């Protein structure tokens, strides 16, 4: 038995040794034959543009063996160190044919990924072949440090827009203040507001004003505030009642202030109470449930919905329609406009909501800014035509004027 084992062991050795030996030589042969790839050249690093710092852009010229030459380069590894002699730490990896990398880190000092500003770094890019041991090290570039910029040049188009728009608005507001009459086309939804208040007075029923689900920081809500002010003033003058259930407590606070002022302006401060404008809840559908209930129990002559609306728009508007109220709505939430159009008598579409406050007040300053908006629209049309011609003839520089880069 023992004898058998020894013989087979020896036999196995006889077979195995040459195989192993051969393998050894093939391995040694290939590694000797494999040329190290050519290194990446012209490594450059500089602070990344238009950012808050904590990032450095590294660029290089592709290795001669990337794609061409021996074609062995599969990736580039980007290394960084605080000293030209190392130790180097790997910061990134990009596939072949790519010759740039942004080394970016956190600005939070506590973070493990923190990337300090104003500290000198040195960069090196390794061209790496299939076997990661086969790599060509580039020259070390440095020192370079990152820092935050104080102006984002990529946003210049926006800045030009801001300036032009501000100048146009101020210009037209000044013109309007001087007393020049400005024409505005009639808006059915706006004319309906006055009629609706009259109707409510005749019927002795209240007006329900819904400010929507927006918060006080949304511009649609601010536009709605201005409309509420006008409505409340007229309501106070006519001795009609207005009900304003609110979704957001800050919106409620502002709305109370507005309605109170409106009653004061109309000379009826005694008719105001804080219960006219009240908070319901900050839950979308609980708010809807409550407003629905109010509609069916108080049977308002008119429901006015102005501001931000989401899925609840249709529930509100359909319930109001069933209750037989006249309904006027306005929102800039594109997905909800169709439901309002179908279920309400009048709907202010998108920009009309913003124009409404100017219409209702008829104050020259507010109308003046409408004119500025119209000029901006005309400018868009003109620019679009020029842009289309440019696109047809391949003049890319015109398109590039409007590119905002972050």
């Amino acid at each position, binding site marked *: 038995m023992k004898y058998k084992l020894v013989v087979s062991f020896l036999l196995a050795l006889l077979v195995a040794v040459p195989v192993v030996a051969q393998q050894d030589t093939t391995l040694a042969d290939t590694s000797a034959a494999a040329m190290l790839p050519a290194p990446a050249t012209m490594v450059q690093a500089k602070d990344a543009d238009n950012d808050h710092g904590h990032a450095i852009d590294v660029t290089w010229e592709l290795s001669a063996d990337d794609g061409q030459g021996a074609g062995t380069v599969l990736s580039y590894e980007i290394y960084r160190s605080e000293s030209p002699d190392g130790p180097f730490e790997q910061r990134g990896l990009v596939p072949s044919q790519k010759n740039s990398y942004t080394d970016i880190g956190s600005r939070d000092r506590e973070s493990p990924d923190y990337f300090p500003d104003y500290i000198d770094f040195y960069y090196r890019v390794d061209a790496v072949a299939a076997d990661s041991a086969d790599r060509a090290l580039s020259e070390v570039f440095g020192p370079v440090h990152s820092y935050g910029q104080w102006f984002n040049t990529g946003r210049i188009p926006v800045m030009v827009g801001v300036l032009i728009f501000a100048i146009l608005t101020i210009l037209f507001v000044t013109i309007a203040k001087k007393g020049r009459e400005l024409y505005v086309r009639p808006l059915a939804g706006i004319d309906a507001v006055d009629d609706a208040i009259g109707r409510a007075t005749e019927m002795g029923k209240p007006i329900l004003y819904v400010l929507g689900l927006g918060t006080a920081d949304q511009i649609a809500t601010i536009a709605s*505030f201005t409309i509420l002010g006008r409505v409340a003033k007229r309501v106070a003058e006519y001795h009609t009642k207005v009900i304003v259930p609110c979704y957001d407590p*800050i919106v409620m606070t502002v709305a109370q202030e507005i309605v109170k002022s409106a009653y004061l302006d109309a000379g009826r401060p005694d008719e105001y109470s804080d219960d006219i404008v009240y*908070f319901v809840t900050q839950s979308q559908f609980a708010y809807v449930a409550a407003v629905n209930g109010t509609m069916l129990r108080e049977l308002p002559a008119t429901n006015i919905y102005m501001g931000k609306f989401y899925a609840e728009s249709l529930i509100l508007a359909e319930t109001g329609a069933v209750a037989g109220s006249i309904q006027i709505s306005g929102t800039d939430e594109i997905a909800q406009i169709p439901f309002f159009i*179908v279920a309400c008598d009048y709907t202010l579409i998108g*920009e009309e909501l913003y124009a409404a406050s100017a219409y209702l007040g008829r104050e020259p300053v507010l109308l003046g800014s*409408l004119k500025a908006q119209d000029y901006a629209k005309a400018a*868009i049309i003109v620019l679009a035509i020029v842009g289309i011609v440019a696109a047809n003839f391949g003049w890319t520089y015109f398109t590039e004027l409007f590119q905002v880069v972050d």
Partner: protein
Amino acid sequence: MRRQLPLALVFIFGVFMIVQYFVPHEYSEWVYEFLLDWITIIGIFALALGIYSLTHVSMGKIRNRTPNWQYAIVTMLGLFVMIYFGFTARTGDSWGLYFVALVALTLGISSLTWGAVETQASRRKIGFAAGLGLLAVFVLVAVFDPSWKFYFYTSEGLQSAMFRNFFDYIMIPIQSTMFSLLAFFIASAAYRAFRARNILATLLLASALIVMLRFNPFLGPVGEYIAQTANWLLNVPNLAAKRAIVIGIGLGIVATALKVILGIERGYMGRG
């Protein structure tokens, strides 16, 4: 002072945020982030005003016996019980004293408000006395009963079993049912559009139908054309109209924001 200073604040912060947009430096980012944090924090304080308003209106309904005043009691009960479970937790095994505390607190607050709301002097006294007595019971339980405490564990505070149950079995079902009512309302809205019989409503309904039928398998070969038309509608005229609306809305927002910053539009500020 009362009006000029707030308008000046609006201007200063408005202009700051505009300038901030063009400054990528981290100081600017840092200020931007904490200004947004401030808004959230102020919002929570505002919620207290909201709860005050809700309580005030509900109590007013109960006091004046306006129609449906009974339901205002339901609102108040829901409010206080939910707040109770949101701020306390049972740490022991028994529910006994935890509920005693809850009942004492709810009844105590109700009696006090009844006392405040009631017009008759003798009843007021009874209300106040009962309220204070019940609150005393609540405090006694709170101090001497180790089986529950005011819940000050943040992450678990919201997971207190009852709070969760109320959320899962009251808020969620009502919420999703309210949401599902939309299925009925969308049908009645479509019918309303169908009856309107003007060119705009017809256009709206026609394109709605085409889009709705685009995946309908029962239409056979016609379905293919409908699907194509729907795709074209969604990709071409839809894109154009959306762009026009978006540009309009953008202009409206930009103009209104500018008017607010410049103090031209100040309707939101009230007066005096």
